[in-house]
């Protein structure tokens, strides 16, 4: 067992599960999507991205790319949140909530691809 692989797999799967947790619920209902969850999703995704740095294989490159997409989407979601609550002062209206959640939905898609790639790699290695 390679401890590096454990940590790596842990963070990639955690990124997806947390992302899913934030995503489920009514898309425009702010009560179903908590800001703490978004925070956790952002942090775990950034960590997962950094863990993918420096992998020279083709698989590593695609994994890094999907992670970068996810992080970008989540940063956009966090920015929309901060803008709505603190800058424009509109608060979490259904419109704003829907756009935050859909952005995180996009990130989740990228995370799904990450996990699928991880599974494929594991299956192909057979060790």
């Amino acid at each position, binding site marked *: 067992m390679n401890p590096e692989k454990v940590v790596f797999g842990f963070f990639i799967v955690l990124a997806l599960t947390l992302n899913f947790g934030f995503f489920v619920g009514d898309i425009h209902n702010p009560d179903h999507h908590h800001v703490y969850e978004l*925070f956790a999703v952002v942090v775990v995704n950034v*960590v997962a991205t*950094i863990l993918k*740095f*420096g992998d020279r294989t083709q698989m590593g490159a695609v994994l890094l790319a999907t992670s970068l997409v996810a992080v970008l989407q989540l940063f956009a979601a966090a920015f929309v*949140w901060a803008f709505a*609550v603190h800058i424009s002062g509109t608060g979490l209206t259904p419109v704003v909530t829907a756009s935050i959640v859909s952005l995180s939905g996009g990130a989740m898609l990228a995370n799904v691809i990450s996990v699928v790639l991880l599974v494929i790699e594991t299956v192909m290695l057979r060790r």
Partner: protein
Amino acid sequence: MENIIFLIFRRMRQPLLTLTMTYAIAVLGLVLIPGQDADGNPWHMDFFHAFYFVSYTATTIGFGEIPYPFTGAQRMWVIFSLYATVIVWIYSIGTLLALIQDKTFQEAITEGRFARRIRHMREPFYIVCGYGETGSALVHALTERNQNVVVIDIDPSRVSVLQLENLRQYVPGLHGDAARPVHLLEAGLEHPLCRGIVAVTNFNEVNLKIAITSKLLNAPVKVICRADSHEVEANMASFGTNYIIDPFDTFAKHLATALQSPGLHLLHRWLTGIRYQPLSNPIYPPNKGLWIVCGYGRFGKAIHKRLRDEGIDTVIVEATPDETGLIEAGLPEEQWVLGWGTEAVTLEEAGIGNAVGLVAGTDNDSNNLSIIMTAKELNPNLFVIARQNNDDNEGLFNAIDADIVMHPSSIIANKIRVLLGTPLLYEFVSLAMYETDGWACELVSRVSAIVHDQVPEVWEISIDEQNAYAVNEMVLKGGKVTLAHLLTDPQQRDKRIEAIPLLRLTEGSRELLPAEDDSLKRGDRLLMCGRLSSRYRMEWTLQNEHALSYILTGQNKPRGWVWQLLSKKKTNGASGTA
């Protein structure tokens, strides 16, 4: 190159992860710990403000407690997170900066930039390996003629010298070992516009490796190499290196030419001179009498052989006859003397009193200078050939007043410049070797009548669409354009351009000093010599059809279609009335 980028990324993992985790913990703590607003109501900080607060405390900016003064619990957490984040911040940023300043990383970046620049080259270029004395002289000469050059050198200081030099063209330089194929590829060996590769490093083996690499990876490319020994020369020739230049043989050949026909030698020097140089005077090395050759190294051997071939008596002065192969050469006793040649005794033993020529050809500049000074005291009428090994001693060799100074670097640079710039001149010179001295002297006087005091400009003309549009079109239409037409002034038809056609290459045959009334064909190549202004004037005739038609017919053709219509009417009307 790629390895290093990945390595940098991998090494960035740890600092970035630590930074992310510390920030996350600090932010989360601030959000979870309850505070109080201005009215004493319980209040929770939100993520946005928590991140803002941590960002400015971690970077030690510190704007204070916002939006409300902190409670004791919050302050305790801030004390913890402040120390943690500041330390982690300094550690991470420090590591990242150190990585960016890493020497291998920096080199990888410059190398990548260089390779990218070469890939985007849009004009033909030459690769010069080795930017020493020869390389820099060559790069100067090539850029003066508006040719693009790429330089590789193993010594970083020489590459920086290249960057400081005020060259006419931008010359990308790579610090790298030219013996490694990867560096040659980065310099554009396989680039479709790479015209040639010149190997003039100080090491024979490196030059050999460059030649092999170039011929294997890009066989059609022109390879020009410097070779200092006959074995390496033969090795290079065996796999088709295009030109191999041995400075000593080249010089010895020039000397033989000067001995046989000084006129031809002078002509050669004028035609191969560097632009704006003053015309040099002819030299007459004595071809009867005794020559003393000091030093039987590569240079001495080459000179000695040529002198013997001319039937000239020689005496060799050599200090280490075993090492240089003088014993094995089996020369008779009276033809060589043991010694350095720097002392009067040795020179007198060699017969300096009744000698006519002296060659100071050791590989040590101080010895060469000393030999010449001693010899001139003993016999002031000597014809002196000095070998200069080091560029820095140029002033000394100018001061010693030798008749010919042989400088290997400039000989190689000059020859390569001619090979790359005007290959036809190379052919011209080899054809001219078969002509008499009288022929050469006549040509010399014709050239000097045209150019007065500066070396003539030598240029090539190809009759094709790109280089001679107007002439090419005219020949395609079936018109007759002769060399005499090209030599007509496009501003005044009755005047002649001051230029001499030296060579014409037509359908595989070569014509020295071609006849002027033969008509030109497409694909012809001509070698011209004359003034620089003549060259520009001739360009008009070659490229501009109005200039050409004026020369052919003496009339200025109307250009726009309105005037063409009008002039047609006029000529029709005129013919009608007649």
